[in-house]
């Protein structure tokens, strides 16, 4: 058995497999399927200070090797999370992180302050990259000054590990990555979904109520890999790679590109057991290649 453990700032993961926010609910939805404690950790869905109804239906369109979504951060707000959901999460013996989003810097701060009081939450993932909200969200993650402003503001009120989730919808993701690192990010996760669109030619209508939405799934993996590679060259903080990871081979490719851990997203919809299969598959890969630790793979692309 190889050593699958990895470290993201102050968070020790027993294996490098996390789940992507918005694809794993609050974890409890998967209790019927498998022992969630087998994961390195999981990231609960995007939480905002105020409850959000999200976007109107239809919110999803299947596309070639992927899907578009336009959920729009539907959630019951940080207070509801802290009082109604959090008590159900303290049973887990793995790392639980919360994805935090907002429309203004003040909203990010207020939400992070509430999560900061929850002992069992190992860290937050600051979502400056949601493409499906009208205000805030991705707007913070597409310019260096605004990314730095929200990251440094939340850093002042949040005491544990802060991962910053980056948007791929930018000209140069390494510049945003450096700005986030400079402002105090402890780790970066990338990529969020890529802005996309789908049209029904027969009805001449868009397939999403919001016209555009976020593309995920295997279709985005080459872009995600490229961006993880570029960001790994640009920053020193650990990177969590995600984007179209369906199996262990996909995950290994992200480690080689420079990710210290990975998140499984859309694959959870298709196979709720995808994460545990990926953990097993990573172990098999390491044994087959006689590699004793996952750390020997991270960023070790042969050029």
């Amino acid at each position, binding site marked *: 058995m190889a050593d699958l453990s990895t470290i993201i700032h102050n968070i020790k993961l027993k294996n490098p497999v996390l789940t992507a926010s918005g694809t794993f609910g609050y974890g409890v939805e998967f209790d019927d399927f498998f022992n969630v404690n087998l994961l390195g950790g999981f990231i609960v869905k995007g939480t905002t200070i105020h409850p959000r109804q999200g976007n109107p239906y*239809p*919110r999803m369109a*299947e596309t070639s090797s992927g*899907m578009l979504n336009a*959920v729009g951060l539907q959630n019951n707000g940080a207070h509801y999370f802290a009082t109604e959901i959090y008590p159900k999460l303290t049973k887990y013996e793995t790392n639980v992180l919360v994805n935090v989003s907002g429309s203004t810097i003040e909203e990010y701060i207020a939400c992070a302050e509430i999560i900061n009081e929850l002992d069992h939450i190992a860290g937050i993932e600051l979502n400056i990259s949601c493409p499906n909200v009208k205000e805030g969200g991705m707007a913070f993650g597409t310019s260096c000054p605004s990314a730095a402003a929200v990251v440094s503001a939340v850093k002042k009120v949040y005491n544990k590990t802060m991962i910053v989730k980056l948007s791929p919808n930018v000209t140069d993701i390494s510049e945003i990555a450096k700005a986030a690192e400079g402002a105090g990010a402890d780790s970066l996760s990338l990529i969020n979904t890529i802005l996309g669109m789908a049209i029904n030619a027969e009805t001449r209508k868009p397939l999403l109520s919001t016209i555009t939405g976020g593309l995920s799934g295997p279709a985005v993996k080459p872009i995600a890999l490229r961006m993880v590679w570029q960001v790994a060259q640009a920053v020193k903080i650990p990177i969590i790679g995600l984007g179209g990871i369906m199996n262990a081979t996909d995950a290994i490719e992200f480690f080689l590109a420079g990710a210290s851990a990975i998140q499984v997203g859309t694959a959870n919809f298709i196979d709720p057991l995808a994460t545990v299969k990926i953990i097993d598959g990573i172990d098999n890969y390491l044994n087959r290649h006689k590699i004793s630790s996952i750390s020997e793979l991270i960023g070790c692309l042969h050029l």
Partner: protein
Amino acid sequence: MQMRKSVQNLKVIANFQLNDDHHLLQLHVPDQLEKIVPGQFANILVDQSQSIFLRRPFSIHTVDYQNNIISILIKEVGGGTRSLSHVPVDSFLNVIFPLGNGFSIPSSKETVLLVGGGCGVAPLLHLAQVLSSEDNDVNILLGARSSVDLVELEQYAIHGKVFTTTEDGSHGEKGFVTDHTIFGAKLDSFSKIYCCGPEPMMKAVASKAKAKSIWCEVSLENTMACGFGVCLCCVTETIQGHKCVCTDGPVFNINQMKWQI
């Protein structure tokens, strides 16, 4: 005890072609089946090809607890359903089930009306079976374009009195399902209406039920990615805000809906 959801590989033990575009798949479940509520559904992995990337949800059509078999009624409407319709016997399908809430079953004997149209008839056979086994007076109204589209009428007849409409008049009363004379004076005799079909049809039935203050449940079908409440893609508007069709539904009481009826 109600069955908990799981991911299972189920063997296809029969694939009956019922007409040009309807197939009935019988799937064998390895472990002893526990209680599945009528209206619950299964999310089936088709082939994970480039164009059929996501699972496809289907109502559980019948449940055979003795032989551990569930059946799925499939109408070919696109690539996913076409592929599943032609799945060979003895192959395996990866299925997540049972999902969703299911219809409410009355605690006392009642006179009930089941209304189905198009591929919306799929959950009604299991519902009719359970309702009749609890000694309810079961009446089933099924609508289709033409008589060839009305499948398994003899199966429904085992569990209740069957009424039909066809748009071309080739079987039963001519017209849409909501044009049937059962919606006239006789409607008052029903204490519950269960409905599944295209949304305009369900709204029309809901409107008739509401006008007579008859309890009515409808089963919705929205496109979904996961089927178990994590993607939040399949929401419908209710008086309590957005609710997931996959976990809060697919069955909703019409009083919960924000329909203009």
